[in-house]
């Protein structure tokens, strides 16, 4: 089954380039059209109703995010394509969406297309984009929802409801305030970076802790964090200083 794809980028070069790469490396992708701006893109999407949109974020007048906001329901998959946009990428990661960096790596492109194909085949409603738009509309909010995807479903959890995370190979266990435990098929490292601005601190190579829920720092075993729910989290020697600093910052805030 072919998936129908639309390319949106303000640079003709990039459109040409993506077109070439898709044709060359991604069989089963039919390019239904391309647009040089967000406004043209909206019209194109409405006209061709694509399965997938490869969307540049930075465009004149309206950005790729603006394009998404103009749809009430997003019935298509999105892969973002960007040269350099830290804030945009943060937002995308928070919603567990896919993105490609320019210049586009062929393997990344193939992988992203494959995943999109799977989701399209499952005909899941794309809640991730809803989450992204929510994140973008309240960028300063203290506790955005983060998408926690696993094979079966995606949970959207408020950041301040996460107590701590524990790594298990390439998976991550999320322990929530309400006692729920969610297994996510991504590495702890990704979440450590993503959640750092929200008061999360790596205490150990396998542990990430929301410092707001720390009750005390115990001396046992060379340092252990006691959380408010009684959980004890080990602190490795290399993280001890950072944990102390983070703890005092959290207490002062």
């Amino acid at each position, binding site marked *: 089954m072919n998936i129908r794809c639309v390319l949106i980028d303000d640079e003709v070069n990039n459109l*040409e*380039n993506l077109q*070439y790469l898709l044709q060359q490396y991604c069989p089963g992708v039919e390019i239904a059209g391309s647009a040089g701006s967000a406004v043209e893109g909206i019209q194109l999407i409405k006209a061709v109703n694509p399965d997938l949109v490869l969307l540049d974020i*930075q465009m*004149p007048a309206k950005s790729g995010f603006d394009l998404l906001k103009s749809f009430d329901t997003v019935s298509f998959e999105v892969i973002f394509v960007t040269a*350099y946009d830290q804030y945009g990428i943060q937002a995308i990661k928070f919603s567990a969406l896919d993105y490609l*960096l320019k210049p*586009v790596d062929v393997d990344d492109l193939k992988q992203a297309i494959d995943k999109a194909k799977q989701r399209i085949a499952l005909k899941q409603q794309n809640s991730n984009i809803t989450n992204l738009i929510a994140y973008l509309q309240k960028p300063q909010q203290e506790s955005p929802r983060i998408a926690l995807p696993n094979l079966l479903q995606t949970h959207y959890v408020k950041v301040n409801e996460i107590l701590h995370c524990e790594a298990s190979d390439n998976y991550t266990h999320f322990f929530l305030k309400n006692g729920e435990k969610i297994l996510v098929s991504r590495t702890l490292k990704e979440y450590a970076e993503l959640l750092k601005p929200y008061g999360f601190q790596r205490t150990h190579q396998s542990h990430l802790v929301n410092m707001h829920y720390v009750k005390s720092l115990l001396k046992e075993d060379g340092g252990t964090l006691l959380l408010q729910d009684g959980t004890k989290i080990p602190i490795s020697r290399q993280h001890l200083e950072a944990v102390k600093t983070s703890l005092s910052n959290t207490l002062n805030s």
Partner: protein
Amino acid sequence: MMIFYRKYFIVCIIAFMGIIGPLKAQPAVSDSFGHYFLFNMITTDKRYMVREPVYLPISDTALNQVFDEMNPAHNSTLINIRPLSPVMLGVKLNPNLRHFYSTIAQSISQPYYTFLIQDSSDAILVAMGINLTNYRDFLYHVVENDSTELIPWSPIPKLEQSYGADKPYAFLGKFNAPGKQIMVEVYNTKNYSIREGVIFDWRNDLKPVLSQIIVELKGAYFNLAYPAINRGYASRFNRINGVPEDFRFPADSVRNITFQFKKQETLLHSVHLISQTKKGQDTLMLGFIDQHGYFVLDREYCRQPGRYELVFQRQQKYPSWEESQLLRIPFEVLPASARDISMKYVLLLAGIVLVVLFLLMLFFQRVNKRRVRRIAQQKESAQLKLKSVRSQLNPHFMFNALSSIQNLMNKQATDDANRYLNRFAILTRAALDNSEKDMISLEDEWRIVDNYLQMEQLRFGFSYTLYSDPALHPADIEVPPMLLQPLIENAVKHGVAGKKDRHITVQAKQSGHDLQLIVEDNGEGFDIAKNNTGFGLKLSQERIELLNELYPGKPFRLNIQSSGTGTIITITLNKWI
């Protein structure tokens, strides 16, 4: 009669009075004058071997002995007896007279000995050194109270031979002047250094005569006798002797008090201080009125509040404490006065204020230091942000450029890809080189801009003009590196990209002392109020704000004009040239 050592007069009086003289002729110890003539001699006592003056008493029935005493063969503890002067004055007073010793007066080189005669009796004066052979060489005179010359300088009045003398000597007279003082001086007209004198003092009142009391305070002094200036330390004075009757002063207000007396030669007065304080009663011998008539009472002796009395009396072997012979000057030391207390408080307060000021100074210094540090930190962070802004603008362009190269490769446009890659390398190198620089020359900046525009021209296909005012010397003018980069990128992406007949003009102009960098495009323009043209402009604004924080006088100004027919963005560098 005794030998009386005159040297160290005070000590002599105290220590030697009463010592039995070495002479056989001496009668039993008595402090009355006795039947003698007293001669001033200089001798050495074999026991001490110190040469010093003595009074040598010679019996008034064997006056000739005075010459025997001077004979080296004469057996005595005193050796080498010589008269004070060749005149050899001999004094005979009432044999029953007591307390006749007094001080020594000085006349240039000669000490004149003085005698107190308190019983109004006569004084007989002879000169054993003046005889038939030399009496014409001598003159004598008699002066009363150091003022009236009773007998002017005259020849020796007569020679006589009595009192057991075996040859004639000069008789200078029998004197009596109750209540007064008489000085007799004799000198050799051929040699003035041969002279001798004696002072008889018939005064009965031997108390010192007070002239004035000088009170010294910190930085001031005054005569106590003047109530207008004496700070109320005394108001009543004895009309006869001038002694203050209500002398009082606060403790520690006075540094010292000088009691000045009428200068006189014939008496020596000791000073005692009687104090009545909370420590009890005490009597201290403080010293003597000096030869000039002064006694200085130091405040050390009257620190304690209480009643005090200075007692002046004639120095003698046994202080008589006879009221008629004492001059008493009472005074009272009051507790430290209110003014002094307030003075103390003022000092204390001043001290506290000083300490507080000092602490405040420290505090402000600290605050200031902190402020300076904070400003430094702000500057530092501004620098850091500036760098990060720079690094933000570079990657954005870089990855887009790389993406373009990727496209050229995929399109098999090998020539273009090469050219593009080359330009990109030049730009990247410039960016790396300039990332550490605050300023680069306008020339270099223009080279980078040219390179960049060439690259973008390949991507978007527009025309451009890069222009520099001929009046400018681009090699000498410095500008912050890549200042125009985001604006030009803006013009390229938003102004002309993908459209036909689009043109970009970048120029540097001189306007007075200002440098203007202008980026102009003929695109569709944008609404400045909405300010949503995105990244590039925001970066430029941020960077200019940061530059203005770093450079004094905030020299950078960004001006945007945009309409349907194009956009002109001007960065003015104020007073830059």
